[in-house]
């Protein structure tokens, strides 16, 4: 099927849990985990008679995010009740913001294939998170029982709604990555997608290229990673195109992403959509945000990803590609900064971070903040490499060992006897052996075939189990074959 004839229209709704110490309407801790129903009080349990009191920190954080995303901060904003029944919602309504959100009309610049694109941000609003359900069976309706944990209930959330400005799954992914970076840089959210502190719903439709009328959209829920977002959108585009190609029409509905099967499934149709019966929250006063308040917060805004990227290029001469990847995550950029502080070879560091470290982190499903290798440890290893104590090849082995055990490079080198052999006497025997065993290559070399030397060096390296100093071996071989 040719999907090139369709224009793709994507908008994202992102929920970010805020990093405040306490919940949005009570003093309970927002700490992740904890025994079920231990981070709760009458207020967040919605017991009869309780009233919410707004945590001012939540407003601060919303203003920070709004400013970082170039939004207007509303002078007058209010909370509303979103009414629906679900057992993870203690009051059976969620206190949220409906028609007067705190932030409006912002944007975020993303970079795809070297091109910068501006994605509009419609609004940002504050709301409370719900609890967590654990079903006895597969779903709430097929289970004999479900258990509910209200620890997460009342953790503050920002909902960040984009304009339908993205035209490909790749752009959507880039937007989410860039948004995550902004929220991390401003320290508004942890953005841990596995823990659910950053969640994303996608609205997607297709229309014939050149059309100005959007097609019917579907909303996809349960997108818990960048990969899931991209795959789900790719799948959904094909599905919608197929429906259209077969002469059908796309139905407006909410769908859920099944990561294991790699497909989206219908969740509920437009007709089954809730009527949330929004109305102003009578237990909270409208929120009036003075311009002083906004100015005060503006002064505390940290460096944002785009600015940091430009700085890395200018200050350390990093290629734009490297700078983009390193600053894509605040933690990675901070890691880089710690390294470059004590070791001046910026590009070498960037190579290790983007290459081996990222590979090992991904394989171990770890965040950079949980890396067993600290910046100091990485730099120590690089210094061993510089001194010639270990070879580049050995360094990779040592690095993996460091990641696995958390031991320092020097310790591993000593334990495993990985020190590079750099004295001629020890290498002589091996060099002689290789020359003796490969008369054909020796002949080729002597006949002027430069390539043969590479093969011979490789043979010595193999014999030395990678410990031989390759430069020295090269010189010795040439000497002996003269």
């Amino acid at each position: 099927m040719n999907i090139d004839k369709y224009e793709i229209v994507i908008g994202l709704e992102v929920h970010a849990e805020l990093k405040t110490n306490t919940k949005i309407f009570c003093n309970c801790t927002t700490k992740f985990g904890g025994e079920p129903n231990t981070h709760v009080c009458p207020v967040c349990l919605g017991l009869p008679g309780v009233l919410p009191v707004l945590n001012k920190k939540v407003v601060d954080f919303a203003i920070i995010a709004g400013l970082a995303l170039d939004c207007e901060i509303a002078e007058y904003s209010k909370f509303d009740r979103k009414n629906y029944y679900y057992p993870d919602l203690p009051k059976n309504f969620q206190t949220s913001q409906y028609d007067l959100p705190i932030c409006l009309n912002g944007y975020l610049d993303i970079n795809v294939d070297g091109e910068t694109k501006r994605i509009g941000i419609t609004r940002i609003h504050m709301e409370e998170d719900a609890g967590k359900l654990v079903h006895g069976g597969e779903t709430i309706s097929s289970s004999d029982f479900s258990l509910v944990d209200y620890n997460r209930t009342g953790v503050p959330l920002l909902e960040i709604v984009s304009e339908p400005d993205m035209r490909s799954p790749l752009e959507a992914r880039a937007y989410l990555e860039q948004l995550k970076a902004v929220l991390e840089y401003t320290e508004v959210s942890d953005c841990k997608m596995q823990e659910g502190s950053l969640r994303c719903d996608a609205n997607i439709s297709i229309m014939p290229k050149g059309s100005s009328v959007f097609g019917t959209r579907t909303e996809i829920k349960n997108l818990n990673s960048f990969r899931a977002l991209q795959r789900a959108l790719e799948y959904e585009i094909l599905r919608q195109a197929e429906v259209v190609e077969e002469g059908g029409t796309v139905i407006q509905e909410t769908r859920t992403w099944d990561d294991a099967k790699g497909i989206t499934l219908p969740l509920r149709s437009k007709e089954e959509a809730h009527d949330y019966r929004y109305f102003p929250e009578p237990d909270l006063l409208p929120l009036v945000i003075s311009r002083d308040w906004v100015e005060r917060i503006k002064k505390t805004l940290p460096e944002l990803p785009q600015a940091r990227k430009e700085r890395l290029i200018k200050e350390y001469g990093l290629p734009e590609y490297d700078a983009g990847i390193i600053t894509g995550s605040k933690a990675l950029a901070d890691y880089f900064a710690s390294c470059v502080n004590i070791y001046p070879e910026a590009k070498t560091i960037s190579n290790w971070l983007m290459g081996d470290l990222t590979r090992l982190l991904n394989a171990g499903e770890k965040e950079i903040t949980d890396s067993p290798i600290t910046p100091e440890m990485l730099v120590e290893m690089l210094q061993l490499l510089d001194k010639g104590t270990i070879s580049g090849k050995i360094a990779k082995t040592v690095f993996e060992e460091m990641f696995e055990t958390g031991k320092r490079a020097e310790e591993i080198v000593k334990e495993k006897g990985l020190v590079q052999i750099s004295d001629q006497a020890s290498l002589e025997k091996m060099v002689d052996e290789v020359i003796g065993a490969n008369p054909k290559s020796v002949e080729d070399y002597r006949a002027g075939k430069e390539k043969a030397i590479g093969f011979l060096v490789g043979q010595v390296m193999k014999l030395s189990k990678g410990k031989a100093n390759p430069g020295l071996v090269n010189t010795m071989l040439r000497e002996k074959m003269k």
Partner: protein
Amino acid sequence: MDLYRLTIHELHEMLIKKEISSLELIKNVIDRIEETDPKIKAYVTVVKEQSLAKAQEADDLISRGENVGPLTGIPMALKDNMCTEGIPTTCSSQILKNFVPPYDATVTRRLSDEGAILLGKLNMDEFAMGSSTENSAFFHTRNPWNTDCVPGGSSGGVVAAVAADEAVFTLGSDTGGSIRQPASFCGVVGLKPTYGYVSRYGLIAFASSLDQIGPVTKDVTDCALVLNAIAGHDPKDSTSADVQVPDFTKYLTGDVEGMKIGIPKEYFAEGIQPEVKDAVMTAVQQFADLGAEVEEVSLPHTEYALPAYYIIAPAECSSNLARYDGVRYGHRTEESEDIVTMFKKTRYEGFGQEVKRRIMLGTYALSSGYYDAYYLKALKVRTLIKEDFDRAFEKYDVLISPASPSTAFKFGEKLNDPLAMYMSDTMTIPINLAGIPGISVPCGFAQGLPIGLQIMGKAFGEGNILKAAYAYEQVAGFYRQKPNLTGEE
């Protein structure tokens, strides 16, 4: 000695002079409850042991010569929608029949800090929805003046307990008249303070933007004393006003010379019982005799208050009562196959007719497509009503009207006619919509049933209301009359 007949200020004098002990007083009132409550049925719960223990503590304080406040050692009771830690708080509903709050409402805490002693919890219309207390899921409370009549509602138990001398004072809640209308039916003093004056934290919500807690007492002096204790900012209630609270007793001067009193003509329209109108007009004349300047005034949007109220209050209630679903506390149905039937059956079994009616009204009014026509329009009406009052209070210190268009009616008389029942709150509802304070004080009798005079003031104008009420009470003297419950004399 019949200590139960006395007021807070009388008992306080005796307590600090050590003429009586709190223990003696509590025992005396509990004896009274045991004697008369089987007939009146004001109490849902009585905490006898706890109150006796607390009385001992109060006596210790007094005997140590500590400087105690006027409520120390005084027995009181709370409407059963105010949370009391460790003591059932039911809202007179099946759905909360077994609910024991793990925390105290702010008013509960404040009264306890003042040394007042909780005797128990009082019957009400389920979730404060009703005007006769016939909507209690448990039993009917009877009017002490005529036990064939309702005590009014929703704070029926609250006023009956004071009228029957089963508590020295009580706290009620008032969303559309639930303190003032029953206070008028039972001949006691009942005040609905300015919205935001008394913390709602721990008051089980009916309609959040209208609910307000207030005192029910035997006289105006007691009303001022209780208001002193419960009014004031509470950081736990975002809608509670951060204002200075005066000592309200300083307004009890008896002097209303030059006070400007408005008589809103819309409150004397058709449908008002002639004896009620006469009693109120007699009271107005007495004010004039005391030197007040009395004038007729118009509050033109009054007739729209009732319909606006019956949109706004049910809308808020439909959301506030959504939490009673059987998941966390309260009643849960025995028969549920899945979550949806559990929600439905729990609520079907747990709520009474009137509560269901209002949840449906409110759900409808907030539904998409109806919101603008109903809820939004009702909010606009609310603003107009507020503006009516604002204009009136530019000119007048207080306004006077009946607290209810009639005296207490008989059981069953209006139970199957919701509209007739709703009409009994026409005098009180506009005050809630405007957020201003209003009091009901006894101003006469018709066929042996009390009549209530409503005095309204501007926001945080409780001082003027109490000043007028006190001056009137001293002249009229109706507060001294008591119902005869035991057949003596």
